[in-house]
């Protein structure tokens, strides 16, 4: 006896659901990653994506992965990563929150997943609407016979961005083993920087932006400036390590300041 024989009300839909799940497994190659699969599974809930039960969805997904395993279907790694994460999410949603636990709550994670699904669905809808628009060359047309009144003949040379980038790629990949002589004189080594800073640090009792320590001739040309900035920064760290200076930075990307430590 299969349980299918019992109720006439619930079973057909359940059978349909099961058939659908089987079909999903066979079609797993047709999915564009775990998020796509989750979106498809979520349709069986037949509710607005905003009111979707993420817990139920996680259960469906894990069942799916279990079945795929039972059928010895090979799932790509990202499907398994998602399965592991959903299992984690499921436990977070089911267990009472542990106040000592760091990080976002199960609800927050679930809400974000729901958001991702809704956003993906929205983009799919947009794509469909976009492709369904009246389109040039199909629904509306440009002038069929552009006129050229032959008067002025001017030669114009053209190139596309692709030409340009391919040209560049061609050169760069051809030449890579050749040392770049011109690059070398643009380098200010850390040893040079350290020597320079050691000489100057004695005068810096107040907080001073380390960029003011860049040597002459290394401040305008971007390549030289970059090299000098990097080596000066590295040298300043070295001085801090030696206990001869202190560094500070008020916030990300703010100037880095140094002063002598007595």
């Amino acid at each position, binding site marked *: 006896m299969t349980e299918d024989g019992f109720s006439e009300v619930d079973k057909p839909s359940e059978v349909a659901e099961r058939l659908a799940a089987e079909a999903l497994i066979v079609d797993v190659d047709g999915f*564009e*990653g*775990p*998020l*796509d699969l989750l979106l498809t599974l979520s349709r069986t809930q037949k509710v607005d994506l905003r009111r979707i039960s993420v817990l139920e969805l996680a259960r469906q997904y894990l069942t799916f992965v279990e079945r795929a395993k039972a059928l010895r279907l090979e799932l790509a790694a*990202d499907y398994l*990563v*998602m399965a592991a*994460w959903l299992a*984690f999410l499921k436990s977070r949603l089911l267990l009472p929150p542990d106040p000592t636990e760091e*990080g*976002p709550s199960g609800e*927050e*994670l679930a809400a*974000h*997943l729901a*958001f*991702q699904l*809704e*956003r*993906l669905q*929205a*983009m*799919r*809808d*947009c*794509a469909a*609407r*976009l*492709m369904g*628009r*009246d*389109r*040039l*060359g*199909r*629904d*509306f*047309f*440009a*002038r069929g016979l*552009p*006129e*050229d009144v032959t008067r002025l003949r001017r030669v114009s040379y053209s190139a596309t*961005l*692709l030409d340009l980038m391919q040209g560049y790629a061609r050169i*760069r990949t051809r030449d890579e083993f050749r040392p770049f002589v011109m*690059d070398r004189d643009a380098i200010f080594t850390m040893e040079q920087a350290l020597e320079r800073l050691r000489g100057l640090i004695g005068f810096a009792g107040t907080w001073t932006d380390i960029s003011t320590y860049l040597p002459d001739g290394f401040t305008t*040309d*971007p*390549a030289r400036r*970059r090299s000098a900035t990097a080596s000066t920064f590295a040298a300043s760290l070295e001085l801090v390590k030696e206990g001869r200076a202190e560094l500070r930075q008020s916030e990300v990307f703010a100037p880095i300041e140094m002063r002598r430590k007595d």
Partner: protein
Amino acid sequence: MSQDDAVKEESLFEAPPIAEQERMVEAILFASTEPVTTKELSARMPHGSDPAEALIYLRKRYEGRGVRVVKVGDAWAMRTAPDLGFLMSRETVETRKLSRAAIETLAIIAYHQPVTRAEIEEIRGVSVSRGTVDQLLEMEWIRFGRRKMTPGRPVTFVVTQEFLDHFGLESARDLPGLKELRAAGLLENRPPPGLMPQMGEGDEDADEASTEGQNELFED
């Protein structure tokens, strides 16, 4: 009007009357298959002309006709009315069939532009294949936009005038449903609250980081 006249008198040659300017804009737009910017119109029309004003009249004149004057980004073009598409012979080249991935990627770029590859991947939940972006670039429906001011300074993608022309859009702001999506918060770049699996990014991240080092060497 009197001020206009004063300006006109200042220029050596008087600009043609607006009705004449309208004819000129009409002829130029008519003769070109590609959209023409007002800047280009200005350059081609006699000194002192005001193509923007002429366009207002011209557009009105073609309202409801078999051919319309349409705005495409910051350019203008004449296009047949969409309801008459059935009359046209379909000798035009059928655009290459776009894959589902390409269509979705295109929609994401259009609605989220400027958008980085990582953001596209975050939305689609899979990595974006090279071929997809390549195809859209070759069709000239997308192009590189400004780099993002985020770590790694990744390049972004935006849609092109060809895209707008193809889909009959005046600007990317006229994309269907854009307002609703924005209102629903679906165009926000909401960062995952930690611990989310970084879908589709995987080794791409490492890639980006090493790219950056190279870029720095290259650019200057």
